[in-house]
């Protein structure tokens, strides 16, 4: 045993340390999907967290870097039951090697089911990963605000297409951009703190409010700008983007005890009655009661706990979803939402051109 996981409630689990000796902290959260570790650890929404994989065998197909959701590992630490160290497919490198090269520790041999049971019963909490040579550290406050104040004009434009979409960047997942590009869009990546007039000066046809880490309330000061944008452009919100748009129109958000993170979360489309599986990764939700204060109708609902999974504006072309239609990892049942958003943007564009 060369390392341990210490939870803020005092529980400790011994395991094997992989990587450079270190001590790290983060909020401990768990992911229940059985594939997709590469996508998860590089997903910016997990920024600063310690991720526990419920599936006990991790690493069997290595890391191909094709499926990374950002340029680096975003989590502070990785907790697994068994870390695979055998032969890999051609082109793949090992998870242990990948994590070590980025200075992120992996702790294996942990009774992950017990860790998850603790988190389920007491809620997410801070955790430390300690190499055996490292002393226990003073507990630090968890970061929930990943959005410093100030304005940012840095715009990146990618793709060349008929439709011009502004991707409002709250630390977006690469697969969202990839999906827009695959569907033939020009994408301008707008910083979350871009000046209010930027979409207009760019001449975008629609806005996609991205996913991102932490508490949506960190963006409270920006809400009037987002509302103005959404009232003007066809808008689509994903995860944090959904929470932010709901809040911009007057809803409240709150934190779940241990969040939804996995690939099997059933959501029900209130219009069709159809249930589909969604990929999820969030701690915060829109409070159902607070929707009275907003114009939104509920579009999707979580089948298990009834929480809000998606909203639609009755008059304006605004749709938001709490889950991840871009999948990666997880089921691709909701890719059609991208098509619908782009169709709406396209229709509006035609109207504008003929007006």
């Amino acid at each position, binding site marked *: 045993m060369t390392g341990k996981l210490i939870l803020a409630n005092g529980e400790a689990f011994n395991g094997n340390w992989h990587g450079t000796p270190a001590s790290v902290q983060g909020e401990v959260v768990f992911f229940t999907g059985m594939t997709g570790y590469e996508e998860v650890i590089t997903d910016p929404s997990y920024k600063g967290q310690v991720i526990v994989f*419920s599936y006990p065998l991790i690493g069997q197909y290595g890391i191909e870097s094709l499926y990374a959701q950002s340029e680096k590992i975003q989590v502070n630490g990785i907790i697994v039951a068994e870390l695979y160290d055998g032969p890999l497919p051609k082109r793949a490198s090992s998870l242990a090697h990948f994590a070590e090269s980025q200075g992120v520790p992996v702790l294996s041999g942990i009774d992950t*089911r017990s860790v998850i049971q603790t988190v*389920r019963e007491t809620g997410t909490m801070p955790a430390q990963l300690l190499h055996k040579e490292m002393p226990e550290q003073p507990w630090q406050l968890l970061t929930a605000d990943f959005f410093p104040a100030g304005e940012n004009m840095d715009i990146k434009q990618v793709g060349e297409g008929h439709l011009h979409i502004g991707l409002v960047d709250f630390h977006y997942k690469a697969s969202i951009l990839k999906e827009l590009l695959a569907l033939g869009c020009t994408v301008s990546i707008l910083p979350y703190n871009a000046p209010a007039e930027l979409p207009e000066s760019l001449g975008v046809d629609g806005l996609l409010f991205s996913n991102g880490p932490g508490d949506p309330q960190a963006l409270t000061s920006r809400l009037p700008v987002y509302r103005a944008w959404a009232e003007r452009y066809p808008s689509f919100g994903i995860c944090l983007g959904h929470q932010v748009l709901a809040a911009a129109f007057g809803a409240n958000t709150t934190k779940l005890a241990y969040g939804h993170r996995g690939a099997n979360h059933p959501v029900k489309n209130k219009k069709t009655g159809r249930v589909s599986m969604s990929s999820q990764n969030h701690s915060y939700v829109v409070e159902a009661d607070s929707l009275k204060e907003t114009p939104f109708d509920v579009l999707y609902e979580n089948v298990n706990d009834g929480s809000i999974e998606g909203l639609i504006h009755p008059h304006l072309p605004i749709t938001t979803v709490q889950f991840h239609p871009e999948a990666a990892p997880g*089921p691709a049942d909701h890719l059609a939402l991208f098509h619908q958003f782009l169709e709406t943007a396209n229709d509006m564009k035609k109207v504008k051109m003929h007006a």
Partner: protein
Amino acid sequence: MPKLDSIEKVLVIGSGAIVIGQAAEFDYSGTQACLALKEEGIEVVLINNNPATIMTDESVSEKVYFEPMTLESATKIIQKERPDGLLATVGGQTGLNLAMALADAGILDQYGVQLLGTDMTAIKKAEDRDQFRSLMNKLGEPVPDSDIVYSIDGALAFAQRIGYPAIVRPAYTLGGFGGGIAADEATYTKLVTQGLSASPISQCLVETSIAGYKEIEYEVMRDANGTCITICNMENLDPVGVHTGDSIVVAPSQTLNDPDFHMLRSSCINIIEALGIIGACNVQFALHPETSDYFLIEVNPRVSRSSALASKATGYPIAKIAAKLAIGYMLDELKNPVTGTTYASFEPALDYVALKIPRWPFDQFQGANRSLGTQMKATGEVMAIERRMEAAMQKAIRSLELPTNGFRLPSVAALSTSDLQELAMNPDDRRLFVLFELLIRGKTIDELHAITGITPYFLYALSNIVTEWQDLGKMSWNDITPDRLLQAKKLGFSDQQLADIWNVPCAEIWGQRRSYNITPSYRMIDTCAAEFRSHTNYFYSTWGTAPDVDRTTGSKKVAVVGSGPIRIGQGIEFDYCCVHSVMAAQKLGYEAVMINNNPETVSTDYEVADALYFEPITAEDVLNVLEFEGINQVILQFGGQTSLNMAKALEEAGITVLGSSVDLLDQMEDRDRFYAFLESIGLPTIPGTSAHKPEDVLPAAEALGFPVLLRPSYVIGGRGMIVLHDEAELTAWLGSAEQAFPVLVDHFVTGKEAEADILTDGENVWVSAIFEHIEGTGVHSGDSIASTPPVTLTEMQQQKLVETAKHIARQLDYTGLFNIQFVYEDEQLYVMEINPRASRTAPISSKVTNVPLVQHATALLLGVPYAELGIEDMYNGQPDFTVKAPVFSHIKLPGLSPILSPEMMSTGEVIGTSPLFEEALEKALIGSSVQLAQFKKGATLFAATESAGSSELAAWQALGFTVVTEDQVSFDDWLLSTAAVAYLDFSEIPDTKRMAQAAIHRLHAWSRPETAAAFAISLKIQSERLKGVLAQ
């Protein structure tokens, strides 16, 4: 949406006899479906002639028709019962085929019967290769280049276009029977010929071989709203080329990355959406091992062997939910029964690996061709659950009950390296053990991957086991630290394996380990990877973690040990018995705990017992469970020889084995002690002796006089039993067989066999139905046609038999259920065997007498006084004749000769019931012959020259059939003629090759005149009925 309220009565079609490719999994799915319908207040009418099943219990279905699974009898039942709906998707291919026949014949329309769940158009789109291909082309789903052929010429034209290797798949056959992969034209022509004859519509699909691809399956469900979910995916360790039923399978997939996993999942959803499935569906894919190219292999629009496996692997009850969807529920209206808090519209998340290994019959059928291909050959399977692949693998190996030494099979360990390499390339049932040996001999993962195509991940898991075994072998027991011991346990090593490595008594490992506090913890199959709280007592063991629950509560408990994988001689009947025992214990206020490892069965449905443990049945694994549960008494009578084999070790560990002492079990099995017992209670014994070494056999036989019967002790299904007629045969036998001594040498009694199941508390005795075997001595009881009540035994003879049974029961210190095999040699009654356990006939006996033997036996075991059972009041006086007929799977097992012998070969059985013996016989034989050639007008029987003069043949000629011999037509010509129906050879040593050839061509092959006569009687009554002689 509520259930369809127009449906009040539903006809459910079962799957009939157990045959290879269609086994106990359909009792599990059928039982779940019937109970799900019953729960909704629907009246369930069932057609299924398999008596050994739970679904044919009165407690499961209101009305059970033990009728042949034919269009004719199903039509009569519909006419009589007038059901509102038909559920056809839980009875395997048999159920689906019968439903298609009913639809095609217009019966469903005529009587206004609604097909529930997936509609007929969708079923046909999935089942008919042509329609399926065109739909897939429309959807853009890749299917291998293929063609449907009806002739050799057509097949050859296709092969010329695409080249070899090519796959041949006959349409509408069970378990892919008749197909295969052909590397050249000669093999291809042979397979197509065989396939066209096997297919009921003489149709084959020939396609590009995708052997070597990864084989991946998904279990998918869809409701009428269009909600689609995948319950689980599974990855075959064996690449495409070995039938999935013969493959080692893991759930979930291990080597697919997220995009590939979801690419295939999305494909499934597109397909079931396009088909319009309502209920369950199985989709099989071939995935290129390096690129993401894939092909669809097959879509089964029904529950299947794989869905049973997926249900057990995930805890999601697919068949039950599918039945609810069929009557109009939506997935999000149904609760997930495991958590009780979430809904059925979700996809299980596993935090363990489930691993299945098939159980093949080749330890018994040594003459059969054991190579594996596209035609399934396994009779059963085991599943193991653990958090590490290595541990799951070793648990599954222990569950197989093969003569293994850990992960090594001595007969494979003895092979040369070049033979092993050959076997790795051309797999048979031993391949797993072959791979272990090659790793031990230093072959690398790369080398093995190159010759087998198995993904290196799996080979690495095997090599970890080998490496650990080698490392441990370099240490000595005295050097082992607690941490090191725990590491070995985490990789799945049993105490026995460790004891063998270090050459110390197993008890020492067990004791030391416990003093180190190294014990397994039990974790719950909760469908959600602990994300939500669950309260389902469905557990597996794992090492070095915390347990999920504390089960050592104070209430009254008893454990029932199951019968493991289905194999020849130990079938579904023992599962029936275990389930009944659990139900009886629960009725008496006990918490009943089930321990078993067979994923196909009802006993491993977590809703049956109060707690289910999916574990190997070995002393260590069972004792660990008992300790965790705080149980000190077990019932071993109902799990066949498997559970009985635990008795000694459990008793030594201080556990009470209910019903009898271990010494008594030994007394019944040890021939010398058994005969001494019979003599001590004044019963005659068959002359015989034990031979302790090979050279003792001949003198013993000569002293007794030929013919003699030879058999080993403690066997299942008459394994190793043989009748030897003269010295030459004996010498040949001694030279050929590897026999474990002692061997029992008996005078071979010529006479009539009968058997009965006996219920007793040692004083009071209930002798249940007496079964008279139609074939005389020398035929295993499992392979003979039998009638209850007897037809030729006189009242006096029966009386004597009953008195003898009662006498034995009162002299044995035994409580519960046991079985006696009798033989009458003229007027002399002998007791051949006493089996101190439930038997194959126990379910039939219970059903035909209305006295549930196992439930009463369990009550007696738990101390209920005999007088309170009220047996006399329940007994129905057996108003009808019931005939049991064996069903064989020879068409799946090339090379296996169908000559009846003391060694059992049948895989299943059916019954027929009627007030008239002849009619009961007729129903049983029609039911047992559904897969064989039919006795149509103009059919010909071929008699071996020696049997041409048999008096039995006259009966056939009288029925209008032609009996030919070699004098009229050569055997080979006759075999290929469309009129061929039965081959007869009644000589002492029939022509093995011809018998096997006849069987593989789906013909009847009779080696006993009694069998032929029984068929003649059954056909006579049919023809009389047609002539109007017999009133309906």
